[in-house]
């Protein structure tokens, strides 16, 4: 009896937690299928009209493409720089390496708003006009610490002998890095890459402050919202959510599953 009660309490608690986290998203997705003009209860019936409207909207589609571009290019750069920094700090004795590690990770603790304002000032000072490139720079700034931290933590001492072996067999530093270290760390490099992509994909403040004519999807959605609630925003929101979920699923299935096995 007692067991039964604790079981029910446990399931109830878990249900509440997941409800708290996912109910907003569930409501968002549900009302993206609303047959009517307002994404609020009551639910009038199932319709795909708003998805049709989203795919017909040139501005939204352009923003979607921009988001993809910025996410992928900035993540590749963040991973590359993160990997190089991690390699240097893990393998060489550098002056003040603890301080350097701290400096590299520090941007994680700074709010995106501050980073965006700082970058805006710098860009203005140098007379660089705002574009998708400047958004990309912003996203490299916020994702580099993440990529560095993930890749650095996966560089174990047991890799040192493997790199030594490669060097012993005649590989130069570049070849050791390209043929041995990077492939060996590929699971964590890819994990860093995909996480970085999802963060860049969802990011609003930096994208908003550092872009002008070409904007990313979150910025475009924001400008849609200014004209009032509309099931179309639910539809595009659901698509954004779907992409994030898909990325996480890929990550989980291909990478985390694999590292568990080996």
């Amino acid at each position: 009896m007692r067991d039964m009660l604790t079981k029910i309490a446990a399931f109830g608690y878990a249900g509440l937690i997941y409800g708290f986290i996912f109910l907003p998203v569930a409501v968002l997705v549900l009302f993206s299928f609303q047959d009517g003009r307002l994404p609020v209860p009551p639910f009038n019936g199932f319709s795909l009209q708003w998805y049709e409207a989203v795919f017909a909207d040139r501005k939204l589609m352009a923003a979607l493409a921009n988001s993809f571009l910025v996410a992928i290019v900035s993540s590749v750069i963040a991973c590359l720089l993160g990997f190089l920094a991690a390699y240097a700090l893990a393998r060489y004795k550098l002056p003040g390496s603890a301080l350097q590690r701290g400096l590299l990770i520090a941007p994680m603790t700074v709010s995106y708003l501050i980073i965006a304002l700082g970058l805006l000032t710098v860009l203005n000072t140098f007379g660089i006009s705002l574009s998708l490139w400047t958004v990309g720079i912003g996203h490299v700034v916020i994702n580099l610490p993440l990529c560095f931290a993930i890749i650095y933590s996966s560089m174990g001492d047991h890799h040192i002998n493997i790199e030594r072996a490669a060097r012993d067999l005649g590989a130069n530093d570049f070849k050791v890095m390209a043929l041995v270290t990077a492939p060996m760390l590929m699971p964590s490099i890819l994990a860093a890459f995909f996480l970085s992509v999802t963060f860049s994909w969802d990011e609003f403040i930096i994208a908003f402050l550092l872009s002008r004519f070409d904007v990313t999807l979150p910025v475009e959605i924001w400008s849609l919202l200014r004209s009032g609630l509309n099931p179309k925003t639910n539809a595009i929101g659901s698509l954004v959510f779907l992409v994030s979920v898909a990325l996480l699923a890929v990550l989980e299935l291909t990478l985390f599953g694999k590292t568990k096995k080996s």
Partner: protein
Amino acid sequence: MTAAVSVHNATKTFGAFTALNDVSLDIKAGEFIVLLGPSGCGKTTLLSILGGFQSPTKGRVTIAGKDMTSVPPAKRPTTTMFQDYALFPHMKLRDNVGFGLRMRGMAKVERDEKALGFLDLVGLKASADKKPHELSGGQRQRVALARALAVDPDVLLLDEPLGALDLKLRRQMQDELKAIQKRVGTTFVHVTHDQEEAMAIADRIVVMNQGRIEDFGPPADIYMRPRSVFSAGFMGEVNFIPGKVKSVDATAALVETAVGVMALPIASFTASAPTSGQAVMLCIRPEHFRRAGEAEGPVVSLGDAKVTGSAFFGTHYRCHLKPASAPDLIIVAHMPQSTAVADGQIVPLAVSLADIVALPEGT
């Protein structure tokens, strides 16, 4: 290929710690050398210096007569087989073995063929397309050996390669290593702390302790005629009986011990010629004790001894004995398996003179 290796007065210090203390060593081409010693004795440091991963604070290293002291690992005619194998986890076995050849610019077809040949040498040709994590410890070991040999080094350096294997597999791999070394003819320098392993594979053993070479020679010499107290103790069980040289003449020295005075031939003093008044340590292996009257050749009697404990070890009885003349001394002796031994039994002990080694105390 193969080459001779020489170390001249190598010293390596890390801060205040001296890992290697003025070590000199000459290794002939094609020899299987084992560096043996407890952890922290400097054997791994010496191997790193040979491989170029560390450079000596003082001294020189030559390989095939050429000075290699400051040549990086990649440019040396050496390859190292690491304790944890250090295989490339993301590469198939054939790519692991072919890696060194790839770095030397060999075309894919050619190096695959050569890699397969070396995998065949270690009996893993059929697994060429597997990845390291699919293999057992012993198999990884073999791949590491094939990879190190594939680049045709003059000298192969092995850093405790068998340390992670279980006993049975270790014995098997020792035989294989020895057989492969004979086949390829490369100079092998192998590090271990297991004296049985050292005796099983080495042409010559280098016994090291506290950064110095204690002893250097073929396994039988190191075991039977050790040149230091440390070396005698490290190579296997041994009884130490302290004594004092009373007088020395041209052929023998008279040594006074708790179990009697004995005239030892000068040849028993393996480390240095005896001097009158010198404190010495007599080293006698447990299997060298005989019951008086059983031994052949000149023997020295140690008087009667009482058995205080014994255990059957298969090949022999291992007994603890208390000599009547020196009740403070405990002697460990191996008695033949054919004769049962009982506690409290009195046994007349003797040793062949040729089996006794006398070393200056404190070496």
